[in-house]
Structures are given as structure tokens and as C-alpha cells.
């Protein structure tokens, strides 16, 4: 699947395109197919997001998994600070990155 990610303008937080808006949770990401560039142009133009780009990913039994480790770290948070990730109560979450 092709998924679309970017950063929130005010906070810089990593966001994922859900089909109708932006979410902090990669599991909300939807397959944008060939529509990525069009969505980026519209959403960046509306100041909803910036630095957006399309990446490869796959839907697994555990949710949406970006293909590259860099995007998996973006999706979760720093592996060396589990308390600052999106899953602070799950110490095993960092294993998902690797």
C-alpha cells in the first residue's frame, strides 16, 4: 500500500493521512494509491500539513507497517525513550521498529 505522511504545521508532529484528515496514529493511515501527489498539493496548500511525502507500507495483523525503518521510528517515536513514544505503556513496542 501507499501511505501518506507529513508533519503538523504548529507542532511538527508526525501525521498520517486517513482519507479524510490527519492522524498521529499510523494505524489510521489509508492506502492513497496514485492519489498521493494530489492530496499533498491540496493539504499543503491548505496549511494542514507540510513536508508531506508518500511511502510504501503494508497492512499486517498488527496494523499498518511502513516499509522503511526510518518511517517506523517516525511512526512510533525514539526507540531509546519508550516513555516518549506513542505507546509509552508498552515496553515491547520498540521491537516493532526493528
Amino acid at each position: 500500500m501507499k501511505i501518506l505522511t507529513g508533519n503538523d504545521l504548529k507542532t511538527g508532529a508526525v501525521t498520517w493521512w486517513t482519507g479524510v484528515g490527519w492522524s498521529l496514529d499510523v494505524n489510521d493511515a489509508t492506502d492513497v494509491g496514485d492519489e498521493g501527489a494530489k492530496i499533498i498539493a491540496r493539504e499543503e496548500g491548505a496549511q494542514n500539513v507540510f513536508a508531506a511525502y508518500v511511502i510504501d507500507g503494508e497492512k499486517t495483523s498488527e496494523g499498518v507497517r511502513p516499509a522503511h525503518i526510518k518511517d517506523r521510528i517516525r511512526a512510533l517515536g525514539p526507540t531509546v525513550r519508550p516513555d516518549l513514544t506513542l505507546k509509552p505503556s508498552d515496553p515491547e513496542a520498540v521491537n516493532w521498529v526493528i
Partner: protein
Amino acid sequence: MYKYDSYDQQMVDTRVAEFRDQVRRRLSGDLTEEQFRPLRLQNGLYLQLHAYMLRVAVPYGTLNSAQMKVLGDIADKYDRGYGHFTTRQNIQYNWIKLEDTPDILADLAAVEMHAIQTSGNCIRNISSDQYAGAAADEIVDPRPYAELLRQWSSFHPEFLTLPRKFKIAVIASETDRAAMRLHDIGIKMVKNAAGEIGAQFYVGGGMGRTPMIGPMIKEFVPLDHLITYSEACLRVYNRYGRRDNKYKARIKILVHELGKDEYTRQVEEELAHLLTMGIEPPIAELERIKQYFTDPAFEADASDDLDLSDPDFRLWVERNTHAHKQAGYVIANVSLKPVGGIPGDATADQIRLMAQLAKDYSFDELRVTHAQNIVFPHVKKADLYTLWKALDEAGIGTANLDTVGDIIACPGLDYCSLANARSIPVAQKISERFGSSEKQAEIGELKLKISGCINACGHHHAGHIGILGVDKKGVENYQLLLGGCEGADTSLGKITGPGFDENGIVDAVEKATEVYLSNKQDGERFLDTYRRIGMDPFKEAIYG
């Protein structure tokens, strides 16, 4: 230390107001990201892996306690309770909100700090010896010269759009504690035969994808030509540096391609031209600056006695303190490398504690080191135990300076958008593997440096043991280098062979230390043994 005059303060305050307006226009949609990006970068605001990152300049690594306290307060108020001290003697915050940035810059300006020129193709923060003004072996305090260069390079209209970023280091001791020859310009303050102070210029050093040791191009530049000569070096670079290829745009490539002699000839030619223009600031300006760097009021009869009955304190004194030029005082190093910790990170509380301790015990002064540690430059020996107890209770009393546990590591793929591999987890695993003080004592001085990509922010080329993280078909892989050194005998590390995974690299480091321990002769450091026996025994042990 230096105090802003009205011009300094006005420049910084004006920049805060200007950036506040730029942020307002960005948030309202009047500026696109393409238009805003160069403006935010000029104010140290990057976009990193998880959020905006703000890099704050610490000129030549020197801070007073009020400034350090504000750095701690910013970590609490605007970030997530911690900051990261960098290999450029700066501090970075990883979770900054765009809308907060003008207020942060205003808080910084109130204590004479800023984030200007911590990004972009300009002259960056000037680094120096963290023991400046305190070390017994310096011929002069390098900081007034670094400050003069800071003033010259700040907002220099000709050098704000150089071919690439530009880094300058200034030292004034035989012992190079600032990796001077691995800078675009390294300046060593020296004394000539007549006893006059001048500057020795090394140009074209650097790390990154093409590491080079800067050659000396001028043995002695008189003080009344210091700025003019620097200007000449920059002008030749600005004119001929490669703008067509960012990977060949640093001055090291120009000096290498022209050759040292031709580059020097062109600098001399430019110097002759510049001398007719009278751009050198009057020597009185340097004298004015020097007034801010006089010695603090040391007690002439301070005792040299130290009670070392506490074994943990004794170990810390042995490892983390350095001789001071004044009897009865020491230079005390705070290692920000607890066993298993994140190199260079400190919590807001730890930062504020160090601020208070500097006020109480170090004449209000601290230094940030390029090894991502903190220095109290002037501590009375009688106060040392109290100081260490406070640090130790706060988790920053680790006794491991310059040992295998004192690892330099860039933020790597955990934070940095340029990185290819994570650095910090590797540093943590090595730190834990070699966590015992007995093991560290057995190995002795060993400088281990880790970068998460070829840009070498973790100085891996200059590590006795260096580690470079690379991306191998989407999987992190780590190359091992041996034999690098950043001191007076600067050398670049050589790659041992094929890379390793995260656990394999830790094993490889251990094997390298075992080769050292079984081959070392009396008084030899890891580096000395490597230089004597060469790469082969290490390769054999690591890959055999």
C-alpha cells in the same frame, strides 16, 4: 565571561522580533514552507524525525549559571523535560512547537543567547578548548580571540551564503582538546620567538564523507591581522568553493583540489588586497573583549589537600578532574554518560542543578565540551566533595571521562532525519558491556565515537574506535574503524572490514579491546598499541 554591549543585545532582540513576525506569517498562511524554511533555519529551527528541533548556540562552549538555568527552564516549559548537548558545544531541543519558538528565543535573548547561525551555509558557532582560562598548559586564554571571531562572523553579509557550512575552532594549548585540525579553519594561538602572541592557521580540515586533516597554511598571523587573514581565507573559499555539488562544497575539497600551496598563495594575494581596505578592528577592541575574560578572584592560599577516603569520590577525582593553573583549584568534568544512558542528554532538573552548582562552586561558569559533557572550570578543592555528592545524587556523578564509557554519539536515527542507523542504542549497549569501573580502569583511555550516518556528527573518524551506522538495504549496519584521533597527533580511523549488526558491533568492540589488552606495553593507550602493532591483529581477532 563576555557581556553583550548594546549593539549585541539590539541585534539579538531585533532578530527575535523579526522571527516572531515570520512565524506569525507562516502560521497564517502568508508564507509557504518553501519560503519559510530558510528563515527558520537561520534561527536554528530544523524539522527532524519527530518534530521541530531547536539548536541553541553556546559560543565557544562557555555559559554562566543564569544561562544554564534558562536552558533547563526551556527544557521544562517548551520541550519534554530534557536537552541534548551536542558535539558542537551547543544544546538541542527535540520537541519544539513552532508557535513557541519566538518566546523561546526571547527567553534566550534575555540571558544573552540565541540560535542564530546554528544552521545554514554560514559560519557556525565557534568552538574552543573547554578548559580555556583554567588549564595550566595554555599560553593565553583563547576565548577573547574566539569572541572577536564570533563578532566578526555574526551576520557577516558576505559569508551568510557560503558554498557550505563553515566551522572554526580556536585553541591556545599544545594539547588540542577541540579537534582543531578537523575544522574548516583551526586556529592555534601561539607565541613567536619575540614572545608575541599570534595565530597559527590550519585550513581545510573536516569530517563528513570526505574526512581530511587541515594542513597548516600560516605559521604566525599577528594579532592585528587576525580578522583580515580570516576574511581572506573565507573570501577565497567563497569565490571558488564548489556550489554545483554539495558533497564537494566544503573548503577541505577546495584546499585539496587547489593544493595547500596554491590556496595559501591566493589567500596571501587576497590578504594584500584586504589590508589596503583597513577592515581589521582596532586592537583596542580585542583589549576591550579581553577585560571580560580576566581570572576570577581565586583564593591565593586555597588548600591543595583533598580527602579521598570515599572510594567512589577518589575514583571520580582520578578520572574526571584535570589540573588547574591555580593552586588549590581543579577543573571538574561532569560526564553526561551514565552507564546505559543517552550520551549528551540531561534533564531539566540536572541542567538547573549544574547551573546552581556553578554559581556556588565555580565562579558562575560552565563549559559544554565537544565530547558532550559539562565542565566546572574553577572548583576549589575544598568544595570538590560537596560538588561531586550533589552531582552523584542527581545521577551525573559517573567517573568515566575519556574511558570506553564516555562515548560520543550523534542523535542518530532515533531523532535525526539525515541518519541511516541508530547510534544511541549502540552506545548504550557498549556502555553497559563495559560498565564496570574495573574494566574501564583496565582499558584506560579509549575514545569511542559513533555516527549514524556519513555526515559524522558523532566524529567517528576521530575515535580511537569509531563506529559508522549505514543503511544496508533497509537494515541498520555498523562499520568499525580503528586508529582515529583528534588531538595534537590527529589521525583518521580506518575501516576494519565488513560491517556488523547492532549486537555484532558491540562484540567487535570487545574483541578490539581484548587485542589491545593482550598486546599493550607499559603506559600504552589503546591508540598507542594500535599504532605500534597495526590493523592486522585486530582484524584477525574480529573476523578470524
